């Protein structure tokens, strides 16, 4: 051991290059997948192919950001899948093909997502119900309520301008068309990274580690945890806008997304229970998952086996991460 004196020579920049705990495996897997894609699919010989991949992955990556906030602070959000469906169905019903309505429907959709997150957060922190149960209940409520409202099948239609973000792009020299969703994703990634560098972000992780220490240190534990749920709800709303644009109105658009996004976050080395993992790794997990689907598609593996392969890889990746990590956990302090 050396004293702090010896370490102060490490510059801030040098420190920032260090990868957060558990990030390395997912980046390695991602790199392998991207290389494999380049070898299998001719589309991936130029940037457009990867941009298309990013565009497909954007909704899941955005959801992963939101889910990361909740998981790292020690919770779960199982309601995001139903929330995405609900948002798309609501937007379609409200817009009903009317271009003019788009302008207020998008903020409304975002607000609704935040509101659902707020409810999740308040019940979790104020009534002390485990978030797994709260968001499971919310999942049931949203599923039921949306269909109750629409009478079983989604009605209405999204406007062109609503769908633009998820579907279209703008031309950029050299790389061709840059999808709006990729631009939005980039902005959110930057925002998320900055947020996690800042005080509130670090508080989220600290709360996942030891709530009492933060409370005694003068922190608003309940408020910050609730904020995580609000951000998760908002991320679901943004993902819904992208997915609605990308895939159109359907009552199945959010099916299974909650499990897929939790898988993605955990694949990124974020530990369920909180206190460990980085937001970049969580997004890398989401991208890895989408890259995997793309690869399986290219290899002609049918829909059925796709989920089998997905299941095996998730277990393998997490097993590798946890068994590998415990190997480094050497015995310390012998007296």
């Amino acid at each position: 051991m050396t004293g702090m004196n010896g370490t102060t020579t490490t510059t801030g920049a040098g420190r920032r290059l260090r990868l957060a705990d558990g990030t390395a495996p997912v980046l390695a897997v991602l790199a392998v997948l991207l290389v494999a894609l380049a070898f299998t699919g001719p589309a991936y010989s130029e940037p457009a192919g990867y941009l298309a991949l990013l565009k497909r992955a954007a909704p899941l990556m955005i959801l992963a950001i939101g889910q990361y906030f909740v998981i790292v602070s020690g919770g779960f959000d199982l309601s995001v899948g139903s929330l995405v469906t609900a948002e798309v169905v609501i937007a379609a019903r409200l817009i009903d093909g009317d271009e003019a309505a788009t302008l207020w429907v998008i903020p409304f959709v975002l607000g609704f997502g935040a509101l659902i997150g707020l409810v999740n957060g308040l019940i979790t922190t104020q009534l002390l119900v485990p978030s797994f149960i709260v968001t499971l209940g919310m999942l049931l409520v949203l599923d039921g309520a949306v269909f109750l409202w629409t009478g079983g099948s989604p009605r209405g239609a999204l406007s062109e301008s609503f769908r633009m973000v998820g579907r279209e792009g703008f031309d950029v020299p050299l790389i061709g068309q840059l999808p709006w969703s990729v631009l939005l994703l980039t902005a959110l990634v930057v925002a998320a990274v900055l947020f996690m560098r800042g005080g509130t972000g670090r508080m989220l992780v600290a709360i996942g580690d030891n709530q009492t220490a933060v409370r005694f240190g003068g922190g608003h534990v309940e408020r910050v945890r609730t904020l995580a749920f609000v951000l998760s709800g908002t991320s679901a709303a943004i993902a819904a806008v992208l997915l609605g644009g990308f895939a159109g109105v359907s009552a199945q658009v959010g099916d299974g997304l909650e499990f897929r996004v939790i898988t993605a976050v955990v694949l990124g080395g974020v530990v369920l229970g909180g206190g460990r993992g980085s937001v970049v790794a969580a997004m890398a997990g989401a991208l890895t998952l989408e890259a995997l689907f793309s690869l399986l598609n290219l290899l002609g593996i049918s829909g059925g086996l796709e989920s089998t392969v997905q299941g095996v890889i998730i277990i393998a990746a997490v097993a590798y991460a946890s068994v590998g990590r415990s190997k480094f956990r050497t015995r310390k302090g012998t007296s």
Partner: protein
Amino acid sequence: MSVTGLTDEAPVVRLRGIGKQFVGNPVLRDVDLDLYAGEVHALVGENGAGKSTLMKILAGVHQPDSGVIEVDGREMSFASPRAAQAAGISIVHQEFNLLGDRSVAENIYLGREPVRRGQVDRKRMEADTAGLLDWLGERGISPRTLVRRLPVAQQQVVEIVKALSTDARVLAMDEPTAALADHEVELLYDLVRRLRERGIAILYVSHRLREVFDLSQRITVLKDGELVTCRPTRELTSDQLVRHMVGRPLEALFPDRADPEAPGEVQLALRGAGNERVHDIDLELRAGEIVGLAGLQGAGRSAVARAISGVQPFTEGTVELGGAAVRIRSPRTAVRRGVAYVTEDRKGEGLALRQSVRDNALLVRRAAFGRRSLGRLDLAALLRSVTVLARSEDQEVRRLSGGNQQKVVLAKWLAVEPKVLVVDEPTRGIDVGAKQTVYELLRGLAREGVAILMISSELPELIGMSDRVIVMHDGRIAGALPAGPSEEAVMALATGHELEAA
């Protein structure tokens, strides 16, 4: 049972020439230790002296590289804790090994439940548990009660009974008071004495000198893995003991007191403050002074600390900070008004163990203050000033020693430049070297104008550090004493003698 009587009989356990290395580093060299029936044998030394290793060798967790273990004169080797248990040696861990949602009996026989005709024999389990509790004279605990419903002191009893239930004749106790609240320590003392009367040999590992002197008949001191001395307790003073442990006298540990001529402004004033635990607290804390808060276990010292820091706020009276009356309703209000609180439970309440040194040092700053409400902070300089030894600022705090963890806790509070610092057992569970650093840090802060309220169960430490000592008795302030009072004067107030005489 007298100490002199010990020599007549053979020891229950005899360790001879024990040596142990971890990856080439010798942690124990040629250590001897005898344990007699009915004695409390204290094992003391700084962190890294080899106490825990020796204890774990006795309990079968580690196997020695050299040396002999004899039980009742027969040479034994323990391949596992089970083997040691079979030979009658049990260990009481520092952290509780109990299940809150199971009954006392279920906990005691956990993993060894008696079976009759394919079913767990609950009647026998509960009867045997009741028998053991009765034998110990603990009649207040029902075998069927859920452990969660018991106060911590009684949980400790269950823990000890669990260790005894394997027909143990030798108990190794590792910092048994670490998890106990102040007033519960006395109950543990009773229990240890009763165990001794019933012929159990106890190896007692503790950092707290007071406990060592209160309880033990003999003391073995280890330093750097070697045996320094093994003497009857009554032949040692605490000064001598510390000298054996660190090689210098006790007084040398404490820095000089504040200049009595220059008391600063009143930073904290309590007037008639109280809540359900404490009453009528009048107290003034001036910039630059360290005020010791003394009292017996359970007198309400920690309750005062918790009230000032907003964890369990005062409900009566007034609190003034820097001359202005304030209502402290939560830790947040206290922190934002310049009150820092170093809790006695470092791991449970003080640190986010899986986070880095840096994140912990910045925890309060980020938790309680907005982005720009404080000036710039030179974190590296701060960590240097509290002399944290860590591989880097990125190292996880759980990897640090207890002493370094405590320095990180101090750093986290210093980062917000508090005006009032409340420290509760600031040296609990850390070795003597680190204790001295903490003392110097506290005095340095006082010199810079911080008002410090210090709580400690170790009277020599409290007396050595304090510019004034306030003594509590039964939830109230019993009296105040000037710098350097005798232990007798403090104890007289703490036990309520003077109150009755007056």
